[in-house]
C-alpha cells in the first residue's frame, strides 16, 4: 500500500486509465450500471419496435383493438424508460470513462475492433437518448427525419450493446458475481486476491494519482461504490417520478420535467397537431363539409347533422402518443362499422381514412378490419360532452382503442372501404 501514501503526481496533459483512482470506476460498479442501462435499452428496443410495427404493419404480427391500453402502456414505458436512461447513461459513461485512456491505445487489429465497437456503442446510444429526449419536447435542431433515423439507430444501439456484452463477458460475469462491498486485494491490505474478484487488468490500481483523491480508506471505497449505485438508483427513480405523470394521470402534479400534462389542452386533452398547423382551419369549419363514404355499394355524402342523427355511441378510449403522453377521454360518435355498412362494407373490411389535411405523413391512415369491427372504434363527433374542439379534429375524427395517436386521423374528409386487392 505504499503507492497509496505517494502524493498525487501532476498530470502532464492526457491522463492514463490508472490515474482515475475513484472506486466508482471499479468494474463491479461499471457492470452493475451497465446491466441496468442494458436492460433499459432492451425495453426501449422492444417497445419502440412495437410502435414501429403498429404503424408499419406486418402480416405476422397483426395488431388489434385489444387491449385498449396496449399502445398507451408500451409508449408510456418507452418514453419513461428513455428519460430514465439519461442518468443511467451519464453514470455508465462516467464510471467507464477511464477506459478511454487505456494504454497502449491500440494493441492490434482485434483490440482496434473492440475499441471501435465501443465508439459505435457510445455514439449511437448517446445520439439515441439525446435526440429522443429532444423529440418528445418537440425540439428539432437537426436536418434529418427523426422517425427513420431513430428506427435505424435503434438497431445499431441494441446490436452494439450485444457486441459489447460479448466483448466484456469475461469481465462482466465475475464483476456481477462479486459484491461491491468486498474489498479489493490492495484495499484489504495486500493479501491474496479472492478468486471471485475481477482480473487485475480491469481493476484500476489503487493510489497512483487521483481524479478524486479522497478515496484512500478501503472501507470508504466500498461505501463509495455502494453510495454511487444508490445515487444512480435514486436519480433514475427521481427522473421517472418527475416525468411519468404525463401518462399516469394521478402523478401529473409531480410531472414537472415532462413535456406534457395529460390534463392540459383544449377540452382537457393535449394536442399534437393543431388545425392551423395542418392547414385545415378553414376547410374544417366550412358548413359545406361532408363526409364522403365510398364502398362496394357506392358513395354517400353525410353532413355533420346527418352523422349526429345516427345512433350515437359513447366510448372511453385513450389517446396515446408515440411521444409518451396519453390521456383517457370520453368520445361520442358513430361506430365505423355502422358507417361502413351504409356503403355495402362489412366489419371485416379495411378502411382508408383521409383527412382534410393536404400532404404530411399522417394525412391518411389505414384502419384494419380488426379495428373496424370493434365496438369502440368511432368516427367521433364530440369529446367530453361537447362538440370536438377544432384542434381535436372537428368536424369528425377517428378514435380506436390500442392505436397510435398519429393514426387517429383528425378532420376526416373521406372513408373508403377497401376490399382484398385494394379496390373499393
Amino acid at each position, binding site marked *: 500500500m505504499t503507492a497509496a501514501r505517494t502524493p498525487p503526481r501532476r498530470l502532464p496533459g492526457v491522463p492514463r486509465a490508472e490515474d*482515475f483512482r475513484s472506486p466508482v470506476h471499479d468494474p463491479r460498479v461499471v457492470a452493475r450500471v451497465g446491466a441496468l442501462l442494458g436492460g433499459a435499452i432492451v425495453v426501449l428496443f422492444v417497445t419502440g419496435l412495437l410502435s414501429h410495427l403498429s404503424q408499419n404493419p406486418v402480416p405476422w404480427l397483426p395488431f388489434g383493438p385489444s387491449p385498449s391500453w396496449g399502445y398507451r402502456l408500451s409508449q408510456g414505458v418507452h418514453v419513461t424508460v428513455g428519460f430514465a436512461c*439519461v*442518468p443511467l447513461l*451519464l453514470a455508465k*459513461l*462516467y464510471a467507464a*470513462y477511464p477506459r*478511454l485512456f487505456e494504454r497502449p491505445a491500440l494493441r492490434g487489429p482485434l483490440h482496434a475492433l473492440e475499441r471501435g465497437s465501443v*465508439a459505435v456503442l457510445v455514439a449511437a446510444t*448517446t445520439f439515441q437518448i*439525446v*435526440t429522443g*429526449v429532444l423529440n418528445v*419536447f*418537440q*425540439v428539432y435542431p*437537426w*436536418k*434529418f*427525419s427523426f422517425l427513420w*433515423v431513430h*428506427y*435505424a439507430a435503434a*438497431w*445499431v*444501439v*441494441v*446490436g*452494439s450493446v*450485444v*457486441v459489447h*456484452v*460479448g466483448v466484456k*463477458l*469475461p469481465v462482466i460475469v465475475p464483476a456481477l458475481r462479486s459484491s461491491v462491498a468486498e474489498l479489493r486485494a490492495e484495499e*484489504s*491490505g495486500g493479501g491474496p486476491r479472492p478468486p471471485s474478484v475481477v482480473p487485475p487488468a480491469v481493476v484500476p490500481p489503487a493510489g497512483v494519482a487521483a*481524479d*478524486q483523491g*479522497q478515496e484512500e*480508506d478501503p*472501507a*470508504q471505497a466500498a*461505501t*463509495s461504490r455502494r*453510495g454511487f449505485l*444508490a*445515487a444512480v438508483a*435514486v*436519480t433514475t427513480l*427521481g*427522473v421517472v417520478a418527475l416525468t411519468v405523470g404525463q401518462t399516469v394521470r394521478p402523478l401529473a402534479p409531480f410531472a*414537472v*420535467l415532462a*413535456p*406534457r400534462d395529460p390534463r*392540459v389542452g383544449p377540452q382537457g386533452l*393535449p394536442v399534437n*397537431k393543431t388545425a392551423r398547423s395542418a392547414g385545415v382551419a378553414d376547410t374544417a369549419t366550412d358548413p359545406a363539409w361532408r363526409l364522403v363514404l365510398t364502398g362496394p355499394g357506392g358513395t354517400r355524402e353525410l353532413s355533420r347533422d346527418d352523422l349526429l342523427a345516427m345512433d350515437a355511441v359513447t366510448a372511453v378510449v385513450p389517446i396515446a402518443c408515440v411521444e409518451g403522453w396519453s390521456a383517457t377521454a370520453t368520445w361520442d360518435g358513430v361506430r365505423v362499422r355502422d358507417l361502413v355498412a351504409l356503403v355495402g362494407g362489412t366489419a371485416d373490411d379495411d378502411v382508408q381514412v383521409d383527412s382534410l389535411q393536404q400532404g404530411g405523413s399522417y394525412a391518411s391512415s389505414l384502419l384494419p378490419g380488426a379495428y373496424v369491427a370493434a365496438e369502440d372504434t368511432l368516427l367521433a363527433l364530440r369529446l367530453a360532452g361537447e362538440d370536438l374542439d377544432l*384542434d381535436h379534429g372537428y368536424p369528425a375524427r377517428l378514435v380506436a382503442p390500442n392505436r397510435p395517436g398519429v393514426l387517429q386521423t383528425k378532420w376526416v374528409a373521406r372513408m373508403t372501404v377497401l376490399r382484398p386487392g385494394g379496390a373499393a
Partner: protein
Amino acid sequence: MSAGVRWSRRVLLVGGAALIGFGLWTAWSTVPSSQWPSALVWLAGGVVVHDAVLAPLAVAVGAWVLPRVPPVWRGPLRGGLLAAGTLGVLAIALVAGAADRRNPSVVPQDPLAAIAAAAIAVVIGAVVGAFLAGARPRGGDPDADRATSVSRARRSAGPRR
C-alpha cells in the same frame, strides 16, 4: 475462460454485428443521403461533448470538491452531481421546448419554475443522503477526517476477512 463463456461470446458478437448491420442497411435504404451529414454530426457530437466536456468537468469537480468536504457528504455530493447533470440535459430540452411551443399544450408548465422545483428535489435528496450516511453506526475511531462512520465501525470490528 470456460467453454460456455467462449461460445456465448461468439454468439453475442455475431448476433450483435448482424443487428448493427441491419441498422446500417436500414439507415442506408431509408434515410436520404442529404440527411446523413446532420445525423453524423449529431452522432459524433454527443461523444465529443461527453468525452471532452462533461466527463472532464465531472472529474475535475469531483477532484476539487470531494476531498474538501466531510466523508459523509462525498457520496451524496457525487450523487447530486449525477442528478444535476441529468437535470441539465432535461432542462435544455424543457427550455427549448417552451421557447418554441408548437401549441399551448406542449411544455405547458413554466420551465424555470419546473427546473427550480426539480433542483430543490436534488438538493433535498443530497441532504437526506448525507443524513442517512451520517446516521450509520459510529465507532470510536477519532480519525474523523479520513473515514466514514461505516469504515470506522468496520475497522473497530476488525478485518472483514
